[in-house]
């Protein structure tokens, strides 16, 4: 994976321009821009065609389609066997997007807010998954609502438009809602599935951690895309200002020079706790910076996806 990204994709990643992405109108176009560029870089990669490869044989049963009968094997061993392919064993993906008010934050170097970033990644991955004949669905809590919006997983081509519309309607509002969203996901998803979670995870960890454990207990695989802004990870502010919490409305007089060290220490400990949790639960954890190329996150996803083949 690492080799792949450092191969021909290096040029693509280096050529990525956040301003170009910001200038594009419509989530559909943005998602295609990101994914087409990414896939062009993967043209000769080992990932190519992984979802249509031969898997194994099973015995022929009356009624099976004769097109899938291995005639050569029959000639060699006089056995009637049916070829099975990987794409027949596709899984269900659920896109889960956090819409708490903190996702509205947009730093000075970012091309969009964290939610814009989450939307873009979710749309690009949906397009990719549907193209590979995987079923994709969605669970969101928009604008501080209590009832989640649920899109049942499907492989139909129209599913992409349906999910895009839902993604475009997402508005960041309300307080912490990730724990609630995970509980809704546990309640709504019954079969083993892969959960793609897009959040900044800036919430009290206990409830959310419990939710992740329950997801794991139910057999779901989770890939967590933690979207953060450069301002959150580095706290680059210099002038003393009044800071207002987007989720609680709480205000504080902050002198950045005085508190930066404390902030970074606490933030790193917070991130380490998440990493520890995801490591323990064997969940993929991908940190995405809002001023970074979304292709990195996709590459990470593909490497994780390969594990589940």
């Amino acid at each position, binding site marked *: 994976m690492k080799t792949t990204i450092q191969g021909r994709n290096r040029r693509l990643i280096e050529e990525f321009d956040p301003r170009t992405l910001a200038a594009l109108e419509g989530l559909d176009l943005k998602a295609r821009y990101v994914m087409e560029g990414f896939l062009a870089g993967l043209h000769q990669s080992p990932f190519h065609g992984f979802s249509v490869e031969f898997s194994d044989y099973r015995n022929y049963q009356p009624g099976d389609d004769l097109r899938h009968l291995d005639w050569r094997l029959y000639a060699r061993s006089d056995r009637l066997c049916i070829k099975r392919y990987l794409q027949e064993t596709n899984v269900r993906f659920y896109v889960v997007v956090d819409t708490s008010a*903190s*996702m*509205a*934050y947009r730093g000075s170097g970012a091309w969009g807010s*964290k939610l814009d970033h989450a939307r873009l990644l979710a749309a690009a991955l949906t397009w990719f998954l549907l193209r590979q004949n995987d079923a994709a669905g969605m669970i969101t809590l928009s604008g501080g609502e209590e009832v989640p919006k649920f899109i049942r997983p499907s492989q139909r081509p129209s599913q992409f438009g349906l999910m895009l519309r839902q993604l475009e309607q997402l508005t960041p509002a309300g307080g912490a809602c990730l724990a609630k969203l995970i509980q809704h996901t546990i309640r709504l998803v019954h079969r083993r599935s892969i959960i793609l979670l897009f959040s*900044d995870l*800036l919430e*009290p960890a206990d409830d959310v951690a419990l939710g992740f454990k329950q997801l794991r207990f139910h057999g779901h695989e989770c890939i967590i895309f933690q979207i953060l*802004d450069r*301002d*959150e990870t580095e706290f680059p*502010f210099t*002038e003393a*200002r*009044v*800071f*207002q*919490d*987007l*989720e*609680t409305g*709480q*205000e*504080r*007089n*902050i002198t950045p020079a005085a*508190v930066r060290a*404390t*902030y970074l220490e*606490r*933030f790193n400990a*917070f991130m380490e706790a998440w990493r520890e949790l995801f490591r323990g639960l064997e969940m993929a954890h991908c940190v995405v910076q809002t001023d970074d190329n979304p292709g990195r996150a996709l590459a990470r996803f593909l490497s994780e996806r390969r594990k589940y083949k």
Partner: protein
Amino acid sequence: MSLLFPLALLGIAAIAAPLWLHLRRKTDPRLIRFSTLRFLQDSPSPERRPLRLRDILLFALRCLAVVALALAFAWPFVRESKPTIIRESRVYILDNTFSHQANDGVAKARDRIMREISSLGSDVQVAVVELAGAPIVLAGFGDDRLALEQKLRDLQPSHQRGSYLAAFRQANALLENSFGEKKRIIFQTDNQENQWTEHVHTAPFLQNTEVSISPPLAKLANLSLAFPKLQRIFLGEKSIVTFSAKLSHDGSAPRTEVVLKADGQVLLSKTLDLERKPETVSLQTEWEADANRWISGELTAQYAGDALASDNTLYFTHPPVREGTVAVLAQSAYLRLALSPEVMRGHWGARMIDPAKISEQLASENDAEVLCIESGYLQSPDARKLVWRYLTNGRGVILAANRVSPAVAGALRELGIEADSPAEGKRSGNLVYIASNHPIFHPFRSPDYGNLGEVKVHRHTRLRAAQGMPLVFGESGDVLLFQGTRFPGKLLVCSFGFEREQTSWPLHLTFIPFLDLALQHCRPTGEDGNNFECGETTTISLPQNSSAREVTVGGARFAVNNATAQIRLPDKPGIYEVSFDSAAEPARRFSVNPPPRESQLGYVSNPEAPAIWTVPNEKGPVAQAGTVPASALSRTDIFRQHWWWWLALAGLVALVTEMLWSSARKAQI
């Protein structure tokens, strides 16, 4: 200090805007909205300032601008209390009679008065009298001119006729109580000729009063309809309605389109050529109508160049037939047959009086509406008493002088009729000189009902009455039929009996219609008036068994007193229903039309009457200094005061200062 437009003070509420500007908390430009402060909880919270006014001076400046501008728009003025010598007392008379509507004359006169009043100073007292049906004082000398202007603006044109003389008397009464050194009446009128000539011989009553009259109008073309007459005539079982009206024109209209509508149906539509026709044309028509229903309709005569269009439509109503009662004391077989139920069913119920039982009839007091009697019975004292009672009680009597004995002549003399006995037996020939305008003979203008000139009278009695109106003359010049006017009841005297040897009339086609019309004419009045003029006041009688307490006419209610109600007809022409209490069915229908005399648009240039009415060579009273009431300040006086100007200036100065100040502050920030 008063305000011309006090509602403009509501503009002071605009102070709320600067108040909000100075109280609101401005967003701190240094605020950073960050995704989470959970890692910075130990930092201090900023202090929130309490709600208080900032920049008091700027706030005061803005409030001053708002208040000053609101006050300026309210237009303040001061009422001066110092006494003012009243130079002139002036009464405007606005002629609002129907004729003045021609060429929009009332509106023009009203605007002229309003213009003059608004330009007058406080040294001129003003009163305004409106002349509609009667003179009405719109505003006295002490009344507010602004209210007067509003009253003039709200004035509606009237369809009534009012007397110029009455208006001048009303104006004179106002001037008698005025303070002005000079007294003046300004009459805004159309100078209708028949109005000025009506009271030209009235004694002088205007003392030291100058009269100004607006110049006369040029001759205006007019075509008008008036005098609707409807009568029902029965030809066998058929009920025919005869209708007539007068069309007046001044020769300027070559032709007109006449349309007659009754009960929603167009009965007649005809183009009438008016060239070389007399000024008054009589229109007459007839149609068959249900005898048991009201007839209501309108006659219109359209002409495009008409100056007074409201009199081109004539409304009319006529009641259904009500069966009358007639008592018959006659031996004439023809008369008895003509009044029998077989002939008069549904119209008249005849009661034959036995000559031997006249006293019983006299005692019963159950009188019919009309008594038909032959003069021979007047020899009986009871019969004479009966006739006398009918006439004095307002009932009708048809007296046929078939025989005149000395006793009968004496009885006739009691009734005011002199019978000339030598003429008895004289052959008079055919009927001639018939009063065709009389209701009885009016329908016979139409040849459909027969020719009265064919009726022969073989023998008649020469009768004379000092109080009577001759209706029919014979060839000899004797009066053959006349109507007595001495009694409250109607007396119709025929100088011959309805016998074959006296007249051929009972065998003639016209006899039954004549008898029916004569009985209808003689029956007690009460419901015969259904056509009125606009604004006319009349008394209507309710049925004896009616318990109604009020009468409604055109939406107006009138109280009932002793089974009668005095009502005032609406001012606008039309057909109006009369109902008693809240009954759904109308009891009667009235047609209301403009006064016919108001349609005569003849004008005079220098009317003689005002000069005759003025008392010459008398010195007027010494002028008294009066205090002008504050409310009498004219709008011109108010506009001359410049309070609003100073306030507007102050508001503008405050606004300019505020703008400069605000700009300077922004530059500092």
